[in-house]
């Protein structure tokens, strides 16, 4: 009866369409292109499990911070201070670990990082100052604090035992074959339900992908712990955002703060909460950083905030709040690190890397903004 041309079964299409899944396609495309070029250039190891594990490992810190950044962006704010906060956490961890042991030191580091997040959130929400300028201020101030704490020098952990525990926390190898199979099984269950209920094939594809991945990587595949932590953080954040009322409220707060307020949502609490989460995640990234090296330098992680935000925005998170997906953010981070890893593997002339990276980033974003014109889906509804 209508002349509005609706697609036959919209959820089927949109779940896999360029707009919704574009960032995954972008990553896949990049991997394929790099693998082909690497092969042609006589570097066949590119798609090896070890190298894929490396990419994941290299992207893990940015990924963890990116997940939290996505939460902040969803609430309509902005956090530039994550790099500095991570450095502060690392400095506190390394500075205290010899004295009080690894676990208490890590606790202190996380607590401090969360406190900085709380401070950011409180200033933004109670004084009403723009989040950009506030977190730019804390970016500078916290980096200054790191300089004061370290006296401008690098710190390192001396105690061999403590160091060993820190390294174990960050650098042991974790076999992943079994875990991947379990995940694939869980996803398969979910896929069946999703297909029966809503004819969505997205989850089925995800389950298949994980299964194939597990088989491809093989029984001996291991990853470093940060990859696992990233997976856990991402899953937890995804669950909260997509499956709980807290998540809905976070989207509401960012999508239209006034509507959220009028619906009885404590807008400030959610906005401040997002900053605390961001601080905590930065702190955790800092702890991992400190454990990775058993040391920290005062300029550690400088400038990483831009990479983190880039990952989130590449993943389709809106700078204006109300939309964003943590899984896509992690994919965005993987795109960025796949690229630099590819440059390294291909031994691409350093001078050309920047140019190519810039172009690829824009092209990746173009894939789903240009390709994905059409009906949108609600925030957080996609996997």
């Amino acid at each position, binding site marked *: 009866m*209508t002349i509005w041309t609706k697609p036959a079964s919209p959820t089927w299409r949109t779940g896999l369409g360029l707009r919704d899944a574009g960032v995954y396609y972008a990553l896949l495309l990049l991997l394929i292109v790099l693998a082909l070029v690497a092969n042609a250039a006589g570097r066949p190891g590119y798609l090896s499990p070890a190298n894929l594990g490396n990419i994941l490992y290299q992207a893990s810190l940015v990924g963890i911070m990116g997940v939290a950044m996505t939460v902040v962006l969803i609430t309509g704010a902005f956090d530039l201070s994550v790099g500095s906060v991570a450095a502060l956490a690392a400095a506190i961890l390394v500075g205290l670990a010899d004295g009080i042991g690894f676990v208490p030191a890590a606790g202190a580091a996380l607590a401090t990082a969360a406190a900085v997040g709380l401070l950011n959130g409180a200033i933004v929400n109670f004084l009403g100052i723009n989040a950009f300028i506030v977190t730019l201020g804390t970016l500078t101030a916290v980096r200054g604090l790191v300089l004061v704490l370290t006296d401008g020098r690098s710190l390192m952990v001396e105690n061999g035992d403590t160091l060993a525990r820190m390294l174990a926390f960050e650098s042991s190898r974790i076999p992943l074959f079994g875990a991947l199979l379990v995940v694939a099984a869980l996803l398969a269950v979910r896929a069946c339900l999703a297909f029966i209920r809503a004819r969505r094939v997205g989850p089925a594809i995800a389950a298949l992908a994980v299964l194939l991945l597990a088989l491809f990587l093989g029984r001996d595949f291991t990853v470093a712990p940060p990859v696992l932590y990233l997976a856990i953080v991402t899953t937890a954040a995804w669950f909260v955002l997509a499956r*709980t*009322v807290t998540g809905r409220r976070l989207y509401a707060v960012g999508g239209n703060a006034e509507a959220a307020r009028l619906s009885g949502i404590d807008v400030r609490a959610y906005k401040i909460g997002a900053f605390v989460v961001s601080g905590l995640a930065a702190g955790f990234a800092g702890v991992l950083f400190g454990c990775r090296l058993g040391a920290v330098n005062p300029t550690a992680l400088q400038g990483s905030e831009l990479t983190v935000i880039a990952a989130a925005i590449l993943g389709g998170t809106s700078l204006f709040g109300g939309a964003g997906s943590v899984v896509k953010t992690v994919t965005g981070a993987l795109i960025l690190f796949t690229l630099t890893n590819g440059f390294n593997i291909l031994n691409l002339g350093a001078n050309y890397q920047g140019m190519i990276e810039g172009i690829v980033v824009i092209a990746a974003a173009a894939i789903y903004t240009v390709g994905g014109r059409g*009906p949108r889906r609600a925030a957080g509804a996609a996997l």
Partner: protein
Amino acid sequence: MVTPLLLAQGVAKTFPNGTIALHGVDLALRAGRVHGLLGANGAGKSTLVKILSGALPASGGTVTWRGASARWTGPARARAAGIATIYQHVPLVPTLSVLENILLDRGGWRRDRRDQRAEVAALLARVGHELDLDALVGDLPIGARQMVAIVQALASGADLIVMDEPTASLAGHERETVYRIVRMLAHAEQRAILFISHFLDEIVSLTDEVTVLRDGRVALNAETATLDEAAIAAAIAGRSVTALSRTADRWIGAPALVATGLSVPGRLGATDITVAAGEIVGIAGLLGSGRSELLHAIFGAHPVQTGNVQLHGQPVGPSPEEAVAAGIALVPEDRAAQGYIPQFEIWKNIGLPHVGAGSWLLDPAAERGAADAAIARLAIRTPDADTIVTDLSGGNAQKVVIAKWLGERTRLLLLDEPTAGIDIGARTDILQLIQSFADDGLPVLLVSSEFSELIAICDRILVMRDGRIVAERRAGDIDEQGLILLAGGTLPTVEQAA
């Protein structure tokens, strides 16, 4: 009589910029009754509503809820106590789905509960309205968003439901749905309803009691049965309002607007339309029938559109810039999203389409002069032309959007629901203004969901359905019911129920 559910006494409000919106208003709302709240634009209705729902703090007076004193510290408290509100500027989250917006005030921890979805679906079925629960609210036109807000309030299960102009941007069919909902809530479920509207027929047929505000004070409070439309209109305007009457046989000139083969893929089928100089052509249709699309297509505002537009024999290219340069004016339906620049003062908003016509230098004095004239002409209630538009009441903001296009350069007026949210007195004034423009030879194309308006002032009425013009009538040859039937709606039940 039963004790009121909510009792407001001496509620007063002074805004930080010095505007006194309420001088001390009394209001009593009772379960099982529909209470109408009326008043001219800027009389203070929305302000009162915001105070009752905890969205704004009062600066004086008391509110009693179920016999106990209530000072809401925020909207959450009022919601929890059992007051649900549909605000005038429909606050929804554009990035969430229809379902999630409806469930926005729900607690619990699971986001995607199937029982809640079923509950909302059942509710929709009960009120007989269709909504795509998974559509993104940001993609919906304003009428559909209004319905989402209504369903949201409905789903909250509150004892008092406050509706601030719920029907202002709805067309016939959806209005019927709203009336059905209101009756069901009040009479079947014994809830209290506060219903704000500028449509007197609605008020008369729907409400049990009315309160009329004027300049922040109660001007009238009486049982509806004791009143008629004229008496209410007089109370609102503070003067007697003459009903619009058709001027027979107006002068009509040569064809001015000739549009051929206008179409927008998937939204507007190939359409030809001609409007003569001095002619007022109305477009009737249901929500989503493509009326707005047609006006936008004439204005060249669609990125993907085909067809030709000629004004007085001159072709007009398909872009808003060329349309404005050719003297075409479009008053869009969604004033907040399409009509004004929120950060601008009134005078800058009014001047926006005209600056640059003469010189590349701004002439603020001239702009202010023009704005002051428009404020006087449309009776916009504002301290001065320097007020930011977002500080105006809804109807007055709408008048600013109309005032943007009342300059001398306008050679074709496209009006999309120009009277949405405008009070009865001003509505008559605006319609008369439109007539006077037409009398001066201006071609006018008027979209309105208020079919009586169309019949009153148009020369010819086109009926749209599903993106096409399906009928054309001389205004004198058809009545409201006939239009409704042509548009594909069902006949209103208002009169029977009253």
